């Protein structure tokens, strides 16, 4: 289905020499930022950069989770609905149970909320990993089924209504900042670094690369393929849950159908743009791709603010840039191969 690039220098090797895709992504990002900064002087204001740093992580975290599943030659379609479900369960805790005992202490109740969300993420990942790793169901239908299950659970619990009226303190997660950097962005950055360390320096990372490139060879070399798949999908869904928490805090509500349809597609766009293929993936690429999408949407939103349906033009531009960058990377790699 997806061919490995012959000269792929991601994953294992990109720390030795930065590959051509990373350079192209950086160039595109800088060029876009300069273009929007030149056209609209508000683009580089502190406020706009702040907003972008708050908005980018929700997409980026899902992109990171999606990238992990793509590295195993699978896909995690349930990541968005798993995120909604974990936000919902932890939100229910925050509204109904937290005031009973943790009431006064904000830090503890929000801390427990985050832990519950991660716990639900682990459970979601367990189900995915079991279906894909142990029962060997194709990832695309297994996660489609769990996607329906997760959103079904959320819908059954809430009766289709969205959950609101969270304690005011929850907004700290999305509006707070440490040293001037918004907390969502710090979470995203931390996760990018953690995933990078896992992929490059742990045995799990090595096993993911092995299983992704050739599961049968991995099996014969003594790797517990099923366990690797299980662990990866758990990690993938936990990243989604973190995104769910940020969305819950930012919008101050949880809806079972938030982002349905569009978020999966965007997460896929980000990880493909980052050059993730089975066995190979660069977390730096995911980071850069996320920023490109955020700059594009923020930039066009400003430029076309008066115009009707400017978000549709953003979609259009995403598609154009995505295909354009794929073509440029492809041509550049061809040139590189020749020399």
């Amino acid at each position, binding site marked *: *289905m*997806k*061919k490995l690039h012959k000269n792929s220098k991601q994953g294992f090797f990109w720390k030795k020499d930065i590959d051509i895709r990373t350079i192209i992504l950086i160039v595109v990002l800088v060029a876009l930022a300069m273009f929007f900064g030149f056209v609209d002087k508000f683009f580089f204001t502190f406020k706009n950069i702040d907003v972008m740093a708050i908005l980018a992580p929700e997409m980026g975290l899902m992109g990171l989770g999606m990238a992990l599943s793509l590295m195993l030659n699978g896909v995690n*379609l349930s990541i968005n609905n798993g995120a909604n479900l974990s936000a919902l369960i932890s939100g229910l805790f925050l509204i109904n149970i937290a005031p009973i005992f943790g009431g006064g202490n904000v830090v503890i109740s929000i801390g427990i909320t985050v832990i519950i969300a991660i716990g639900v993420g682990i459970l979601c990942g367990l189900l995915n990993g079991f*279906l894909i790793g142990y*029962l*060997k*169901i*194709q990832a*695309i*239908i*297994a996660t*489609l*089924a*769990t*996607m*329906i*299950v*997760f*959103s*079904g*659970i959320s*819908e*059954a619990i809430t*009766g*289709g209504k969205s959950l609101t009226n969270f304690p005011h303190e929850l907004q700290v997660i999305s509006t707070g900042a440490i040293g001037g950097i918004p907390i969502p962005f710090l979470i995203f950055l931390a996760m990018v670094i953690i995933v990078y360390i896992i992929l490059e320096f742990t045995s799990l990372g090595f096993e993911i690369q092995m299983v992704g490139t050739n599961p049968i060879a991995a099996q014969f070399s003594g790797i517990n393929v099923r366990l690797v798949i299980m662990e990866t999908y758990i990690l993938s869904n936990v990243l989604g849950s973190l995104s769910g928490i940020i969305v819950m805090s930012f919008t101050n509500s949880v809806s079972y159908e938030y982002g*349905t*349809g*569009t978020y*999966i*597609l965007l997460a*896929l*766009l980000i990880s*493909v743009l980052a050059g993730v293929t089975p066995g190979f993936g660069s977390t730096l690429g995911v980071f850069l791709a996320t920023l490109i999408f955020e700059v594009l949407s923020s930039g066009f939103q400003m430029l076309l603010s008066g115009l*009707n*349906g400017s978000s*549709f*033009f*953003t*979609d*259009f*531009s*995403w*598609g*154009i840039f*995505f*295909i354009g960058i*794929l*073509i440029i990377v*492809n*041509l550049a790699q061809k040139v590189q191969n020749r020399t």
Partner: protein
Amino acid sequence: MERVVKTYEFALFIALIGFSMVIGFVKPAFFSISTIFNILDNSVTYTIMGFGVLIVLLSGEIDISFVAIAALSSYATNMLLLSWGYTGGISFYLIIGAIFGALLGLAEGLIVTKFNIPTFFVSLGYQILLYGFTLFFLGSTYNFNLPPGLTNYYSEFLIRVKNPFGAETSLNVPVLYLLIIAIAMWLLLRYTLFGRGLYAIGGDREAAKRVGFPVKRIILLALIINGILASIAGNIQNASNGYFDPTLFRGNDLNVIAYVIIGGASILGGRGSVIGVVLGVIFIQVLDLGVIYMGISADWQQLFIGLALVIALSASTLPSILRRIQE
């Protein structure tokens, strides 16, 4: 006969019958002509799109932009034909739409084959691009403007049947198109060089290339046919709805692919059949209708459908697990 019994499609058919039996046992009202008509009517557009998905999957590629092609080509067709002052029925819609669909499929195919990028990657961007184009440049609202020949399309029936209580149930015309397209697809896959080529390049691309199959041209043609089928499905769906929707089928891309895979196609290419697609779509429709007949409240329906899918998928792996234990 034995060859038929051993196929995946036959197992799916048996599962479908068994499943219907369970629903019918709980709610005898499920066994009626109107249920069958209902399921057939609801299956038409998804099955037609499913055929396009099947062709692309067979070749070893994955496309998810067909939903956007369906939306764009049908919405544009309606705008074009209205501006011409067209007053007739759906036939012209299907023809003009098919031209749009073919061109959109061709554009996608050229990007895929010229630059050697996997179809899945291109189609990700292509889908979001096409929906964005439709919504921004063509229109972002439902278009209720239809030519006179099309306004009553939802009530053009193929067959009418009176049930014992005097009420009338009817089967819509598009089922006929589905039948024609299904037969055409079956012939195409079975008796043409293109059809055999699809299976060949999906099974082992390198070997097919050595034998002399023009891999790129086959993929290009597969994407064009995919576009044509999507445009037909789009026009039929919009005409039956009675309005043209610029976001038609948005978010249904993966569902349709899942139906085709449930119908026995492999995501890796080289395996799948026309009858499998039909059964896969009907299986989901029976599931959807089943939860309604079982009297499950609306909020819980999705959960039950999801759980039923998980159980069905898990059950389908039982034979291979048993085999592994035996060894």
